[in-house]
């Protein structure tokens, strides 16, 4: 197994950043860690890299303890910060990190050109990092973590502060890795990223994994499969309230809320409202998603 974390605890003074987390990563899997800022995602990642000493628990990377040379050699880490040498060029940066991982000669040259190609920065190889755009720096930051061809990659919010176009480029880079069978841990507080990229998702809050499964499993287990319909009418009087209650809904802040199993049920609801003489202003359908799961499990929105 690429990664196994058992009963991991890490405290910083009075704060328990990681509170007894246990989980495993399957070979070739992309496991998402979804949680708000301060949930303990980065501490968990840094513990795996060996940069944080846990208070208790254990971590093994392909059977080797975290922080050991064997673990470092198979682990690629893409930190949240742009951990690059600003005054070096793209290829000089990659070569430096390659040397730090023990590469040299032709193997190093090959690794540099492979990573430049993966990050679509080949034509910028000689450009100083400080002259690159934000998106390019992000891509180079990712490439630097892959220079030694690791077997497990830890990506700590690699799209922070990136424009939508660059974000797409980054997604394509990650999808390419997935297609090649790379085992990936991907932390994010963007639900859409977890849904798009991850095979399984662990929802992390206050240093604990509060739910783990595929996107569909999490939604089904936490909030079921029923969608939410919200309709607004010109009037929100007692007549509307009693009509809504009759159909199993409720009136919240002047809007009628119903849950439906299938979207086709919306037509019947709207037809009934029309016959009752209520003037419809707008209607919205909310399918349950990870945001709903998080809200359901914690009582808070993901990005509060």
């Amino acid at each position, binding site marked *: 197994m690429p990664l196994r974390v058992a009963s991991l605890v890490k405290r*910083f003074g009075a704060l328990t950043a990681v509170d007894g987390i246990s989980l495993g990563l399957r070979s070739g899997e992309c496991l998402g860690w979804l949680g708000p800022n301060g949930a303990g995602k980065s501490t968990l990642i*840094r513990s795996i*890299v*060996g*940069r*944080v*000493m846990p208070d208790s628990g254990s971590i093994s990377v392909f059977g080797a303890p975290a922080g050991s*040379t064997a673990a*470092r*050699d198979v*682990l690629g*880490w893409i*930190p*949240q*910060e*742009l*951990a*690059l*040498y*600003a005054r070096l060029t793209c290829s000089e940066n990659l070569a430096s*990190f390659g040397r*730090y*991982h*023990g590469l040299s000669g032709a193997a190093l040259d090959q690794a540099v050109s492979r990573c430049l190609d993966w990050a679509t920065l080949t034509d910028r190889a000689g450009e100083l990092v400080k002259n690159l755009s934000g998106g390019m720096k992000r891509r180079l930051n990712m490439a*630097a*973590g892959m220079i*030694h061809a690791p077997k497990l990659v830890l990506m700590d919010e690699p799209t922070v502060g990136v424009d939508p176009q660059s974000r797409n480029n980054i997604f394509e880079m990650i999808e390419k890795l997935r297609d090649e069978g790379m085992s990936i841990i991907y932390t994010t507080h963007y639900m859409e990223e977890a849904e798009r990229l991850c095979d399984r998702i662990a929802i992390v809050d206050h240093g604990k994994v509060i739910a783990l499964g595929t996107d569909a499993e999490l939604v089904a287990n936490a909030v079921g499969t029923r969608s939410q319909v919200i309709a607004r009418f010109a009037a929100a009087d007692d007549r509307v309230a009693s009509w809504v209650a009759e159909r199993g809904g409720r009136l919240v802040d002047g809007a009628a809320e119903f849950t439906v199993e299938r979207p086709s049920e919306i037509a019947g609801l709207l037809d009934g409202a029309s016959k009752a003489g209520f003037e419809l202003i707008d209607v919205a359908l909310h399918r349950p998603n990870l945001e709903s799961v998080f809200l359901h499990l914690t009582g808070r929105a993901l990005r509060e």
Partner: protein
Amino acid sequence: MMISAIVRTAVASLRRDRAALALSFILPVVFFSIFAVIFGGRGGASPKVKLIVVDEDHSRASEQIVKGLQAETTLSIRTRPAAVKGVEQPEYTAASAEAAVKDGDVPLAVIVPKGFGENPISFGPRDPSRPSIQLLKDPSDMIASEMVTGLLQKVGMTSMPDVMAEQGTKNLERYAGALTKEQRERMDAGLKYLREHPDAGSTVMGGNGGQLIPVTARSVVGENHPDMISFYAAAIGVMFLLFTTSGAAGAMLDEAESGTLDRVLSSRVTMTSLMLGKMAFNSLLAFTQLVVMFLWGWAVFKLDFWAHIPGFIVMGVCTAVAVAAFGMLLASTCTTRAQLGALSTLIILVMSSIGGSMFPRFLMPEAMQKAGLLTINAWAIDGFTKIFWRDEPVSHLWPQVGVLLGIAVVLFAVARRLARRWEFA
């Protein structure tokens, strides 16, 4: 109203910028105090001139001269080397005194030669065949030799009145008498000589025209060096080396802040190898800086660089390694660049002032000269002076080499210990 708003904001900002506060208030006070102690003679501790006195004559006059010199409060007289393991050493000879000046143990030695007592006072033109007091000097301390020459005259005047009187009578008989024809001729000859040789003071009278006690001064080191270029190359060089390496070591702080340090330490690189790598680079940088400085001294100021290459390499490497370790320690002590800037400026300027980078240490009070030995500057400057000024062999550099390498090892070890905060959270 607007002005007071801006002042309030600036005050609030300054209060939280400890580095700027330190530079604004602590540094000037510390610096002022150092200068005050050195030049203000605080505590009555103005430096005594160290002087070796060798009495080869053992006459009444020579003993009086020695006694007179010993009575001078501004002089610290030695007649024999310090006891070794409680065993008293034999008195200095002219040769061992000269060696001591050459080695920089003392800036001056006074040799009272055999036969001096027969004719200690010289009125009128000097007879070159008469033995005169030898003043062996290290010209790097220009003040000391002038001072001792003057003091010898004073001692002559005050310590041996009988000799003065006797000599005066002799001279009166010799030059005045009844002013016979012969006397007139002698007087005329003397006056004629002085008229024809207006600089007779420096050529015949031993350096100070009109000396009663004949003194011949001789530089025993630095004869081939017109000035003290090597001293300044080393003194200024070391100070800037300290600034350079502190700045370069500060790259660790930038890397820690940007996360690069974390990334590096997640590779095969350990903290020890990272720090040794940085230290090697900083040492190389410092050594290159010294090479440039001394080459410039050779090209522009005629510093005799090429004749001293082995000594330069030994001292250059040791100095570079020591300053690099100092930079590493400062960087690992500080948490921000601003802190490093303030702390390094404070420490380097203080070290440079008491360590002899700004003015020679022999000008300082005794206690401050000793305090200077706690600085890298003093040991480095002493080493370079040994090579370029005293032309000493490389083997004589062992105290400087030992101390500088020792400093490097200790500072690096402490820096490594402090760097543990970057290692793991």
